[in-house]
C-alpha cells in the first residue's frame, strides 16, 4: 500500500445529458499530493471533480476512477464520502430549514442537540461563521460566506481527498488567505490529497502544489510545476501551454 496512488483516473469519458464532456482524462495523484487544475471555461474541469465525487447526472461512459487502488465508478456520493472523498461545491444549494450549525454537526457525526467542542467552536469563530450558525444553509450567504462554510464543512469531515472547485472565485483577499491557510495546514498535517480548480490563480500564492493539470476540450495534460504553467498560460494562453516542454507524459501513456 505504501506506493499506492491516492487517485488513478484512466481514459475517463463522461457525458452529461447525452453530451460528452470528458473525452479521455487520465491522471494520477499520489498520497498527499496536490494538483491545480487549469483550463478554459467549459473545458470540463468542474465535470471532472463532480464525476470523482459521484454526482448523479455525471455519467461515466468508459474508463475508470480508482481510489486507493479500488475502482469507485459504481459507488454513490455517500459511499465515496465514506471513503474520505469530499468536495467544496462552487455553487452549493440553499437548503431551507436546515441550519448551518446542523450541517456542521452532521459533518462531525454529531447529533443536532450535541454541543460543539471548544476546538470546533474556535474553528467556527476563525471562519467568521458564528453569527451564521442558526441561519439556513447558504440561504442569503454571500460568495465569501459560502466558500467559508463549504471549506469548514470539508475540514470537519476530515477527508483524505479534497476536491475544490474554484475556491478563489468571488472571495475577498482576507477570506482567501484564511481559507487557504486553513486548507494548507490541514493538507500538510493530514497528508490528504487535493485537486484544486482555479481560474484566477490567486490561490497559488497560498497553497503549494506539486503539479498542474490543464484540461482542454475534455482531455488533460499534466505538468510538474503549477507556477510555471500558470505563468505560461497568462503569457501565451491555453493553446501555448500545450506545446510546453515540461509536460508530463506518464498519464497519457
Amino acid at each position: 500500500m505504501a506506493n499506492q496512488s491516492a487517485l488513478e483516473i484512466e481514459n475517463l469519458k463522461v457525458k452529461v445529458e447525452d453530451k460528452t464532456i470528458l473525452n479521455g482524462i487520465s491522471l494520477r495523484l499520489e498520497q498527499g499530493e496536490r494538483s491545480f487544475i487549469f483550463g478554459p471555461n467549459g473545458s470540463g474541469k468542474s465535470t471532472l471533480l463532480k464525476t470523482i465525487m459521484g454526482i448523479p447526472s455525471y455519467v461515466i461512459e468508459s474508463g475508470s476512477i480508482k481510489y486507493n487502488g479500488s475502482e469507485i465508478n459504481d459507488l454513490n456520493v455517500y459511499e465515496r464520502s465514506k471513503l474520505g472523498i469530499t468536495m467544496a461545491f462552487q455553487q452549493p444549494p440553499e437548503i431551507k430549514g436546515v441550519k448551518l450549525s446542523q450541517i456542521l454537526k452532521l459533518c462531525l457525526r454529531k447529533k443536532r442537540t450535541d454541543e460543539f467542542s471548544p476546538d470546533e467552536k474556535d474553528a467556527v469563530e476563525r471562519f467568521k461563521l458564528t453569527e451564521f450558525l442558526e441561519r439556513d444553509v447558504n440561504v442569503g450567504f454571500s460568495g465569501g460566506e459560502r466558500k467559508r462554510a463549504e471549506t469548514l464543512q470539508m475540514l470537519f469531515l476530515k477527508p483524505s481527498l479534497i476536491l475544490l472547485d474554484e475556491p478563489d472565485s468571488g472571495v475577498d483577499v482576507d477570506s482567501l488567505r484564511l481559507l487557504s491557510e486553513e486548507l494548507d495546514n490541514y493538507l500538510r498535517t493530514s497528508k490528504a490529497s487535493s485537486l484544486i480548480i482555479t481560474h484566477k490563480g490567486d490561490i497559488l500564492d497560498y497553497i503549494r502544489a506539486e503539479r498542474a493539470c490543464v484540461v482542454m476540450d475534455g482531455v488533460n495534460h499534466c505538468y510538474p510545476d503549477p507556477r510555471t504553467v500558470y505563468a505560461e498560460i497568462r503569457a501565451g494562453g491555453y493553446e501555448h501551454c500545450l506545446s510546453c516542454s515540461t509536460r508530463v507524459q506518464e498519464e497519457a501513456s
Partner: protein
Amino acid sequence: MTRESLVGLPHRVLNEAMRVGVNVDESDTSGVFFHVDQKTIYSKVGEAFDDQIEMMDTRDALEKYPWLKERMWTLVNMDKDEYTREVAENWSGGYFIYIKPGARVTFPLQSCLMITMENSRQRVHNIIIAGEGSESQVLTTCAQHHEAREGAHLGVSEIWVEDRAKLSYTMVHYWSPETVVRPRTGVRVGDGAEFVSNYICLTPAKDLQMEPKALCEGVGSKAVFNSVLYVQPGSHMDLGSWTVLNGRGSVTELNTRAITRSGSHLISRGTIDGNNDDCRGHLECRGLLLDEESILEAIPILRASKSGAELSHEAAIGKLSEEGLTYLMSRGLSKDEAVSVLIRGFMDISIMGLSSGVRQEIDKIIDMVTGSS
C-alpha cells in the same frame, strides 16, 4: 372532578400524554387541563398565575358566568353542519380559559383532550377569552390513545382576542388511523389584537376536516395561521384556514407546509376575504410529495370586495430536491438520512414565533415522527 396534581391521573392517561409529547411537568406551564373521553379530569392554574388566569370546564364556567351563555355559539354557527348540531345536543364540557385583562402569561397554558375508549365519540365545546391587553400562549394537544382504535373527536372552539391582546394558540393533533376528526373553530380579533394559530398534525387520521375561521373585526387586528402537516399513509385530510379582514388596517398571513406520502390525500385550503379598503393578506402553501401514490391539492382563494384590499398568494408543490440530497450525501449522510434531514428542514417551525419551551416540545414531536436526531 379535579385532582390535586397530575400524578393523581390514571397511569394509562399520563403515560399516553407523555408519549404524544404533552409536557407533564407543571413547573413549565401556567395551567394544565385534561379532558378524557367525556369528562374533564384535571384543571389547575399554577399559583404564580392564579390572579391572571381562570381555567375550568366550560360547564362549570356557564354556572359561574351566566353571561357566557350569550356568547356561546356566536362565532361558530350551531347549525353549520351535523357535527356542530351533535355537539350542541350532547356535549361533555371542554376547556374554558379566561386570561384576565392586562395579564402577562409567560408560560403556556396546556390542555390535553384525549380519547381512550374504543369507539368513543368525544364532543367538546372550548372557550378562550384573551382579555384586553393580555399576552398568553395556549398549547393544546388532541390525541387518541394508541390502544383505542376507532373514535371520533368533534370539537367546537370559540376564541375571543379582545382589544390589544395577543394570543398564540398552538394545537397538536395526534390521532390514530381510525379516528374521525371534526374541529369547528371561530375566532374574533379586536382592535390592535393579534391571534397566531400554529397547527401541527404529523400522525395519521382516517378522516380529518376543518377550516378554522378568524374574523379580523378590529382596527389594526391581525390573524396568522401556520400549519405544518405530515400526512401519513391511509389518511384523508381536508384542512384549511380562513381569515375575514373587516377591520381597517387588518392583516393576515396563512402559511402551510405540507408533506404527503404513501397513499395519503391532502386538500390544503386557504381563504382570505378582503372587505376593507385598507387591509392586507398573504397566503403561502408549500407542498412536498414524497411518492406518486399520494395526492396533494392546494386550493387558495382570495376574495376582495373593496378595491384597496391587497391580497396575494403563492402555492408550490414539488418533490425533495435532488441537489439537496446529493449535497447532504456528500457530507457523509446515507440517502435515508439525507431524506430525513430535508423533511425535517421542510417542517421548520421557526416561522411560528413559538416560545423556546413550546418550540422544544414541538421539535421533540417532529423528531420522533421523522426519525431525526
